[in-house]
């Protein structure tokens, strides 16, 4: 029961956060002197009726604080308006968000599957040649700019022809069978995922190593060793569980970093994700789309942190008992 209460409390806490975020983003975007409907007005395929509906929805003829409330009201209702090309924003988002989520989740899974074991290994083999090599590799991984690495990968793909370049699916995607479709997506996902993986792996591995070293130095591990337990048991049964806990908090941050890093990577690989969407929207000053994708990005980030918190509750009994 304590557990459910905690989760409920955490969810409630995100509401003021979302309100502040929406206020900040709304006023930042309105700072620009751009008419939010300028593009829409210029588009001949948009009827006057749609235009009037938009003006009414956003209350553009009223003072700015009323505009904010009407925007917020329609956002909560799920009415996000139209893009400058005349498509529904919600449709566009529905198309792009799963792609970004897919990319991010694949990358998180890969980094954890590789980064955690590597972190443990380099902590156990501290100050050996292996550890030093990993340290150097990690420094390199952290320093390489994502878009530069993406360009290098693109170069690799174009030169070898092993990987398709751009998009998420091939042009003949709809004619493929189910299995072939999955393989096609996986092929397209390979390079963007590899770029983000390399960049986030280093941080994760360093963090895991630091946690593990700290835990291995603690009294209960010394006690476990003194008891005569095998090193294997000490590491995997006693130390690991405590070293992983702080990593779960990191999961939320990692998600945030990936969302940002993904924008550039998506741009270089022409990957149809949220990051590229917001970028295109910004370039075209498509206000509806910018606002909506900014909010969606924020919601995804907050949700990511929420999930990390809940996971932490599950893995760390101390938090469950204390309730705080």
């Amino acid at each position, binding site marked *: 029961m304590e557990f459910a209460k905690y989760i409920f409390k955490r969810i409630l806490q995100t509401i*003021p*956060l979302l309100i*502040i*975020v929406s206020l*900040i*983003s709304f006023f*930042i*975007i309105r*700072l*620009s*002197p*751009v008419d939010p409907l300028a593009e829409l007005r210029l588009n001949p395929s948009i009827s006057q009726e749609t235009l009037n509906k938009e003006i009414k929805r956003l209350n553009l003829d009223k003072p700015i604080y009323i505009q904010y409330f009407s925007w917020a009201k329609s956002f909560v209702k799920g009415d996000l308006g139209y893009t400058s090309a005349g498509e529904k924003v919600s449709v566009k988002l529905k198309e792009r968000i799963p792609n970004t989520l897919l990319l991010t989740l694949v990358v998180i899974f890969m980094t954890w599957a590789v980064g955690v074991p590597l972190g443990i290994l380099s902590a156990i083999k501290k100050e050996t040649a292996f550890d030093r090599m990993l340290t150097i590799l990690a*420094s*390199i991984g*952290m*320093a*390489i*700019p*994502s*878009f*530069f690495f993406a*360009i*290098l990968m*693109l*170069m690799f793909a*174009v*030169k070898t022809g092993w990987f398709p*370049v751009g998009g998420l699916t091939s042009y003949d995607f709809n004619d493929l069978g189910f299995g072939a479709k999955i393989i096609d997506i996986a092929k397209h996902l390979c390079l963007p995922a590899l770029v983000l993986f390399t960049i986030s792996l280093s941080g994760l591995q360093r963090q895991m190593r*630091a946690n593990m070293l700290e835990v291995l130095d603690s009294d209960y591990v010394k006690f476990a060793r003194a008891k005569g337990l095998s090193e294997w048991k000490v590491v995997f049964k006693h130390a690991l569980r405590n070293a992983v806990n*702080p990593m779960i908090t990191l999961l939320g941050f990692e998600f*945030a970093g990936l*969302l*940002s*890093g993904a*924008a*550039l990577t998506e*741009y*270089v690989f022409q990957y149809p994700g949220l*990051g590229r969407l*917001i*970028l295109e929207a*910004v*370039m075209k*000053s498509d206000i509806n789309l*910018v606002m909506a*994708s*900014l909010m969606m*990005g*924020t919601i995804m*980030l*907050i949700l990511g942190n929420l999930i990390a918190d809940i996971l932490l509750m599950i893995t760390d009994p101390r938090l469950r008992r204390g309730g705080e």
Partner: protein
Amino acid sequence: MELLRKIMKDKFAKSAFIVLCFLYLVILFADFIAPYSNYYANREMAYAPPSRVYTIDENGHFSRPYTYNYIRKFEPALMQTVFEEDRSQKYYIKPFARGEKYKFLGLIPTSRHLFGVNNGGEIHLLGTDINGRDVFSRLLFGGRISMTVGFLSLLIVFPIGLLYGGLSGYFGGIVDTLMMRFAEATMAIPSFYLLIILAAILPSGMTSVQRFSLIIVILALIGWAGFARVVRGMVLSIKKEEFVLAEKTLGASNLRIILKHILPQTTSYVIIAMTLSVPSYILAESGLSFLGLGIQQPDASWGNMLKEAQEFTNILYRPWLLTPGVLIFLAVLSFNLLGDFIRDYLDPKGRTRG
């Protein structure tokens, strides 16, 4: 300078330190070292490959270093423009050659450059870009922007972050809650999304100096919250110490206590945070310029120079356009290595980590 001596003893920190010193020296003297100015363009020579420098002449004898000009030709069979060396005329590379006029260090007018070739000759150590501008020279001028943007942003981030975190932590209670909620909200927006939106609402038609300053402000707007939060955490624990109580009983004002007694305690964290956060500003600026939202043409920055490199034909045939990326990588790597070292030195117990 105990720290400097320690740095010189560590293999990695030493190389990082030397690389950074070298980079900053080079960009300081960019006008002098670069054979061309930032805006020099020879449209006839778009995408010329790097000039080859010869030290052995056609007879097999050693010679002063010289280079040939390129002639642009269209190869109908390949449907491509190719560059061939014009072997008829040698251009010797002269030290302290005369070139375009500039002001040395912004003060002394001169036209001497570190090296150059005689009139009519061209030397492009790293080739040219789409407008026939010398990539090597632009790398140096671009470095001026890319390597300073981080420090300048930090000059804004630190006062704001220190004061904000200091006030929030010192007063506590409802003030703290409200201030921290606001900081958390700015952190909850994916930073890169916020960055591109802020950059996009900058009005067009600004001078390059205005744009550069506003980019610095924008980068600072992204970075202050995280810093303020850590400062607040430190202030929370410092304010419980006895010397703060002593100041209070002596009747010092709150602001005085925060500014003169509490914040100075965070100095080592500030230094650590500074070296560790410079790379993220360098990366953010270059990312922004890469997208075309940061520093605008014709000004150079490492990010906007890389923008060209992402086109397929350039990736395949003009690898010299990738050099800015290598420099970003080197700079960031060096800052990271140095930052890690300084952290280990100033804070061996790892209090400021995480």
